[in-house]
C-alpha cells in the first residue's frame, strides 16, 4: 500500500483520484492549501504527492513552495492547457511528470502504474539512455504517450513470443514502425494489441526517417479504435473459447492460401481465441473471415461436427446403388441448406453478408492519394 498525498484546490479532483484508483494499492489523503500540505507532509510522509489544479499560476506557486520545503518527495502535476514551455518549466522544478487534463481513465492508470508502481525503473537517474519493461505494465499506447511527454528521440523494440517489432520516435513524435512487412500505421495498430511480452527503449542520436504522417494523438486514437473494434467482434462470437472444427470433407486445396493456412488449424479442433492470440497479422481481418466461416458452416461446433462426420461415414458405407438413389431421390446436399449459424448476433451476420456482397473498391493506390495530399498541403497553406 502506497500513501499518496493529493493537493488539489477542488475536492472533485481528489474524489476522482479516489474513485479511479479504488482498486489499486493506494491510500489517498487530501488538502486544498499548500501551507496545510507542508505541515501534513511531516506527519504523513507519503510516497508521492499529486498536485492538481486547473490554474497554472497556482500550480507554479505550489511547485516552488514544495521545492523550497526540501521534502524531496516525488510529485506529479495534473493541470490543463499546457504549452511545451509550461511543461518544461514544471519539469525543471523537479516534477516526476506533468499530466494534462482531461485524461482517459485507462491512460492515467497506465501512466501511474508506470510512474508509481513500477519501482524497478529509477526515475531519478539522469542516464535514461535505455530501459525496458513488461508490456503488461505498459502497452504501446502508454509508451507513445510517455515518450511524447519526454520528447525522446528513440527506438522502441517490442517482443511478443517470437514476434518482434520496432517503433521510432523523433523528439517524442512517432515517425516509423516496422513489423512483418506491414505498412507502418498498421504495424503500430497490430502491436498495440500486445499485452504480453517486453519492450526495450533505446535513445538515439540520429534522427529517424519519417514514414508516418499521423500525429501521435491521431495514431493513439486509431489504435484505441482498432482495439475496440477487435474486442467488439470477438465478444460477439459466443463460442470463441470452444473447440471448433472444419466441416468434414472440406477440400483445403480449393481454398485461398490465407484461408487454407488458418482453417487447417481447426482440422482437429481449435478455438477462435487461440487462433486470434497466435495470429501475426491484423486480427480484425481474421475475425471477419471467421464470421464468414461460421456463417457458411465451414467451421462447426463439436456436436454438429460429430453429426456431420457420422453422416459422411454412413454415406461412405452405402452401396453404390444406394448412393446413386440417394443422390437422385434423396435429401438435398446439406451444404446447400440455409446455413445454421453459430453466431447468436444476427446483426453481425447481416453486416458480414452485406460486406461480402458489396462491390469491391478496385482503387488501391494509397500512394497516389498521398501524393495529392502533399500537393494540396503545399498549395493550400
Amino acid at each position, binding site marked *: 500500500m502506497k500513501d499518496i498525498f493529493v493537493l488539489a484546490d477542488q475536492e472533485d479532483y481528489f474524489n476522482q483520484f479516489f474513485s479511479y484508483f479504488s482498486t489499486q494499492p493506494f491510500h489517498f489523503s487530501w488538502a486544498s492549501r499548500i501551507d496545510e500540505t507542508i505541515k501534513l507532509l511531516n506527519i504523513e510522509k507519503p510516497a508521492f504527492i499529486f498536485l492538481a489544479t486547473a490554474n497554472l499560476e497556482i500550480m507554479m506557486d505550489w511547485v516552488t513552495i514544495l521545492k523550497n520545503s526540501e521534502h524531496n518527495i516525488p510529485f506529479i502535476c495534473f493541470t490543463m492547457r499546457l504549452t511545451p514551455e509550461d511543461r518544461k518549466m514544471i519539469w525543471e522544478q523537479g516534477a516526476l511528470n506533468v499530466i494534462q487534463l482531461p485524461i482517459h481513465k485507462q491512460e492515467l492508470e497506465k501512466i501511474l502504474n508506470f510512474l508509481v508502481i513500477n519501482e524497478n525503473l529509477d526515475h531519478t537517474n539522469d542516464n535514461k539512455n535505455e530501459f525496458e519493461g513488461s508490456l503488461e505494465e505498459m502497452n504501446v499506447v502508454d509508451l507513445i504517450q510517455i515518450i511524447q511527454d519526454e520528447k525522446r528521440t528513440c527506438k522502441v523494440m517490442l517482443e511478443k513470443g517470437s514476434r518482434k517489432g520496432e517503433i521510432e520516435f523523433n523528439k517524442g513524435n512517432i515517425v516509423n514502425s516496422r513489423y512483418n512487412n506491414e505498412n507502418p500505421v498498421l504495424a503500430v495498430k497490430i502491436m498495440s494489441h500486445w499485452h504480453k511480452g517486453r519492450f526495450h527503449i533505446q535513445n538515439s542520436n540520429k534522427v529517424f526517417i519519417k514514414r508516418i504522417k499521423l500525429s501521435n494523438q491521431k495514431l493513439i486514437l486509431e489504435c484505441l479504435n482498432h482495439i475496440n473494434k477487435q474486442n467488439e467482434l470477438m465478444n460477439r462470437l459466443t463460442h470463441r473459447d470452444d473447440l471448433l472444427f472444419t466441416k468434414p470433407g472440406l477440400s483445403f486445396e480449393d481454398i485461398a492460401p490465407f484461408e487454407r493456412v488458418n482453417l487447417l488449424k481447426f482440422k482437429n479442433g481449435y478455438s477462435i481465441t487461440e487462433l486470434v492470440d497466435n495470429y501475426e497479422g491484423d486480427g480484425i481481418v481474421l475475425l471477419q473471415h471467421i464470421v464468414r466461416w461460421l456463417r457458411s458452416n465451414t467451421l462447426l461446433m463439436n456436436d454438429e461436427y460429430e453429426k456431420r462426420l457420422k453422416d459422411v461415414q454412413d454415406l461412405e458405407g452405402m452401396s453404390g446403388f444406394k448412393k446413386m438413389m440417394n443422390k437422385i431421390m434423396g435429401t438435398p446436399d446439406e451444404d446447400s441448406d440455409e446455413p445454421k449459424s453459430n453466431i447468436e448476433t444476427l446483426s453481425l451476420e447481416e453486416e458480414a453478408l452485406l460486406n461480402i456482397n458489396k462491390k469491391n473498391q478496385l482503387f488501391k493506390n494509397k500512394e497516389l492519394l498521398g501524393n495529392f495530399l502533399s500537393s494540396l498541403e503545399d*498549395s493550400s497553406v
Partner: protein
Amino acid sequence: MCEIIEIPVFKSTEEENILLFKGQNFINDRTYDGFRFLEYALNEIQSIYFYLIEPFNEQNNNNIWDRVIPKAPFCIYLYDFDDILIKKFYQDYSHYETPLFLAVKKEDELNEEILSQFEDKIIYFNKNDDNYFKLFFKEILNELTISS
C-alpha cells in the same frame, strides 16, 4: 508522367447545389449525356477529374455506377436538404465498398438521422475560407490516408 484521380460527384438536378465547385478554375468543363466533366489541375502533372452525376437521371443506370464507382478512391454527395433523395441514393450506394463523403455547407444543420448514417464521412466547407476547395479535399485525403 501525369497523375490523375477520378471522383464521381453525385448531385440533385438544381444547379445551385454545386456550390462547392462554383468559382473554381477548371481547365476543362464539358457536358456529356448523363454527366458533366470537370478537370481541376493541381499543378502541371496532377489533375483531379470530377464526374458530376445526377443519381436518378434516366441516363445514369446502375451499369454506369458499376463502371465508375469501384475505380474511384472515393465519391462525394453534394448535400441539398432533400433527405428523401439522399436516403434513396444511400440505399443504392450501400452496395459499394468505395467510401462516400457528404459535402455540407458549414452553416447547414443536418438532421440526426443523416448525421448518424454518415458519421465521420461528413465534410463541411466554408465558402468564406480562402482555399476552401483545396481544404475540403485535403480533409478527405487525410481521412483516407489515416484509415489505410
